[in-house]
């Protein structure tokens, strides 16, 4: 029979709409004020931390809604912002400097809904407030550093194999090694060829020169490594901020995008990203009296520093080596399975260190961790005051003369060794990074944007609803149902897709989808009217109307979808936000406007003898 939907089709429509509504529902619950406690420098929050936090809060009678351990962080939800702030202050004070305590807004989605993957839509910076940075990695610097390292390596290699050379210098085409005779040149070439497969070696027997240059492949790898290293460092630093959904992502060949939604203290965010950490090696002052020093009588050439547990050490002021000379650092285990940090120095650093350690064999040397952290204070010029934090991380006895590569132990856990290695590399970044773009949206503006966008959507919907109802009467109501379902589906899909973020242009995209989704119904309804005018029966007109309009709708929507997908692929920022909702909107509106309305129309009007239609 004409215009009867099979049961499965009606059920499918019902199911899809219900499913969409279910996953759209987390957006109704809003967010809880929360405090997030996360470990610093490799310490992870664990069950003990959780108990500690709970005990602290209960002791001070601060009312909280729930407390949980999630992904190595303790999350405490509160009923109101007042107790949230109190809780933050209390925890910040008592947990010491091994944990960072950050304010946070956490979705208040009920547990059963969260268990089936229900999450609210992510809001873009323009809607949630927050800050976004675009950082550029200085690739030239990365290449220069790599070349400098190569010069040193070559010298060592040639010396090690006792091949005599006149000089190793950076030249226009690469690194030039000058020899005295052809035999040395040939020996050196075969040696270097064996050791560096990714270098291009060109020899010239007339000038007795060997030129080594980086292949395209090697250059690419160097750049890639610099970018990856910077991303890792920034991720680590961002974690300290306790942002709910931070984004650190590479963009193109040399840029890194960092988005911190909901961050209100942007100055602090910037400072943490720009923070520098490094290490210094200093000799322990063994002659000075520690007890005297603790009483305030520190020898002039020494100073008193503490380690993490508060144990004091008296150190010489003179620095043997700074972190600038570190070209690489990694973590591993020593023969007793203790975590250790392997450090590689550049050539000047290597010879400096070698000289410094030569005369101090058998004496204790300390590794000092130095970090510049921003404080809340401002100097008279309005600039943030940085606090220099110095911490002794290890004291080791120098066993032998140390050269270009060596290792330090005493870093604690493996995670800590790993993090220290990371920070060491960061302390002497292979390639410096620089903020090239910054966008900050104040929280009030964000909230205002949400409100305005929501109002615009509601008003647009309302106007279209009224118009359709007047113009198409009963069929207008069906179209309106489809529009409502469409909105629910867009929100549902946006909430389900992990990468989708709602932005202000995205809201505009939804509004536009509404305007255009109506088009599908207009096409169908006009076609039905046309068919009826030509004298077709009601059922036939409905059937023909849907049939004839379908190919038009398909063509029009597919072309728009192509445009939207290209925008998504090529665009950034607002264009991408717009493209996301537009593409989703096109697909959902096709479904609701064509399949959805057909089901309703069939259920209400289908299979009956009708003389007239309310259209």
């Amino acid at each position, binding site marked *: 029979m004409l215009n009867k939907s099979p049961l499965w089709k009606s059920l499918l429509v019902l199911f899809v709409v219900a499913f969409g509504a279910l996953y759209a529902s987390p957006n109704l619950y809003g967010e809880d004020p929360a405090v997030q406690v996360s470990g610093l420098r490799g310490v992870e929050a664990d069950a003990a931390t959780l108990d500690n936090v709970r005990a602290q809060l209960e002791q001070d009678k601060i009312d909280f809604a729930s407390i949980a351990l999630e992904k190595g962080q303790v999350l405490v939800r509160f009923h109101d912002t007042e107790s949230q702030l109190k809780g933050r202050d209390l925890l910040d004070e008592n947990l010491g400097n091994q944990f960072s305590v950050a304010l946070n807004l956490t979705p208040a989605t009920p547990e059963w809904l969260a268990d089936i993957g229900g999450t609210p839509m992510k809001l873009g910076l323009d809607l949630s407030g927050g800050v976004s940075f675009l950082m550029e990695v200085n690739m030239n610097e990365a290449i220069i550093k790599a070349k400098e390292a190569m010069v040193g390596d070559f010298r060592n290699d040639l010396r090690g194999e006792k091949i005599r050379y006149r000089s190793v210098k950076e030249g226009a085409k690469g690194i030039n090694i000058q020899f005295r005779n052809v035999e040395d040149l040939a020996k050196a070439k075969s040696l270097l060829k064996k050791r560096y497969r990714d270098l291009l070696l060109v020899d010239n027997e007339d000038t007795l020169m060997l030129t080594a240059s980086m292949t395209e492949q090697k250059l690419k790898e160097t750049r890639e490594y610099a970018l990856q290293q910077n991303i890792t460092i920034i991720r680590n630093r961002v974690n300290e901020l306790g942002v709910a959904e931070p984004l650190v992502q590479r963009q193109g060949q040399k840029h890194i995008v960092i988005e911190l939604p909901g961050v209100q203290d942007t100055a602090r965010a910037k400072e943490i990203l720009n923070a520098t950490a490094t290490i210094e090696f200093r000799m322990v002052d063994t002659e000075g009296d520690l007890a005297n020093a603790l009483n305030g009588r520190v020898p002039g050439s020494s100073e008193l520093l503490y380690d993490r547990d508060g144990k004091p050490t008296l150190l010489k002021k003179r620095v043997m080596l700074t972190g600038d000379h570190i070209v690489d650092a990694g973590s591993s285990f020593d023969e007793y399975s203790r975590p250790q940090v392997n450090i590689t120095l550049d050539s000047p650093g290597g010879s400096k260190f070698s000289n410094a350690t030569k005369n101090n064999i058998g004496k204790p040397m300390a590794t000092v961790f130095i970090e510049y952290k921003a404080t809340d204070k401002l100097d008279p010029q309005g600039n943030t005051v940085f606090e220099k934090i110095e911490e002794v991380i290890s004291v080791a006895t120098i066993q032998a003369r140390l050269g270009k590569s060596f290792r330090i132990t005493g870093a604690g856990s493996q995670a800590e060794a790993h993090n220290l290695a990371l920070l060491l590399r960061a302390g002497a970044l292979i390639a410096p990074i620089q903020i*090239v773009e910054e966008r900050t949206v104040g929280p009030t503006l964000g909230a205002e944007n949400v409100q305005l966008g929501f109002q615009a959507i509601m008003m647009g919907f309302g106007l279209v609803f009224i118009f359709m109802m007047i113009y198409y009467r009963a069929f207008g109501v069906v179209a309106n149902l489809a529009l409502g379902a469409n909105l629910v589906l867009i929100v549902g899909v946006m909430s389900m897709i992990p990468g989708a973020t709602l932005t202000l242009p995205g809201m505009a995209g939804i509004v536009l989808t509404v305007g255009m989704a109506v088009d599908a119904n207009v096409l169908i309804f006009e076609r039905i009217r046309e068919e009826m005018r030509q004298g077709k029966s009601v059922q036939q007109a409905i059937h023909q109307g849907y049939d004839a309009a379908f190919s038009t709708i398909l063509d029009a929507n597919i072309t*728009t979808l192509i445009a939207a997908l290209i*925008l998504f692929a090529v665009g950034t920022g607002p264009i991408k936000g717009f493209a996301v909702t537009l593409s989703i909107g096109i697909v959902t509106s096709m479904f609701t406007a064509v399949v959805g309305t057909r089901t309703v129309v069939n259920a209400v009007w289908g299979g009956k003898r009708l003389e007239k239609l309310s259209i």
Partner: protein
Amino acid sequence: MQILRLKETVNFMAFRKVAMVFSIVLMISAISLLMVKKLNFGLDFTGGTLIEVGFEEAADLTKIRQVLDSNGFEDGVVQLYGSSRDIVIRLAQREDVKAEMLGNQVLSILQQSTDKNIDMRRIEFVGASVGEELTEQGGLAMLTALICILVYVAFRFEWRFALGSVVALFHDVLLTLGLFALLGLEFDLTVLAAILAVIGYSLNDTIVVSDRIRENFRKIREGGPAEVINISLTQTLSRTFITSITTLLVLAALFFKGGALIHGFATALLFGVFVGTYSSIYVASAVALALGISKEDLIPEVIEKEGAEQEQMMP
């Protein structure tokens, strides 16, 4: 209820020469405007710093300008933004000061000399190189979109329709850009998004019309191409109107209620919907006609299709 009820076929194509001259004049004016007045590119494209602040009471623009001038920010553009209490300040890129400091500097100057309680709403700074990349990317996005559309329409319909619709798109984009140059409105990333939406909308319209023309070429035996196009346009006219009305309603909501941030977006689209509707009739169809679209181009499929339809209609 019905707005349009046309008994007679409207002879749209009779005016196509007038329309063509009209369109060409408009396009030439748009091009000259773009060359002479140029687009007022926003921060996204030029690089520089933008600061949006909210005052507690109505902001005194003259005073803000003076304060900025006396502090060495003579190039600052100060504008009200959305309400009398919100202002934006745009500063060009400068070489001696790091961009990241600039925004904070201006903010603290304002806080010291005008109103302590001004609230930072938005700071953006964009490097010039980033802007350059964006201009390239934006152009690339448009070009790729146009080519893909051309290919799809040529594949689904016919090359004359494809060319017609792409000429129509080009026409719409050009006129919208021309309007922005004429009124000196700021052209930022959201406007670019709107232009792309105009492409989407205009395309939607063009496809609907082309689809009907194709259908009628196959169905109607008598009458020349111009007449078939006229019949098709008349048949789709009421749909064109209603869709434009609903879209305009929604856009009006955006324009008046959406806030300052998407004002440019709404303006571009409002205008785009008008030109888009016009161009699907007088540019896309007229170009296809001028290129000599005829029954024969679409007829081979007809017999097959008609047979199929008959079968389908049998109960």
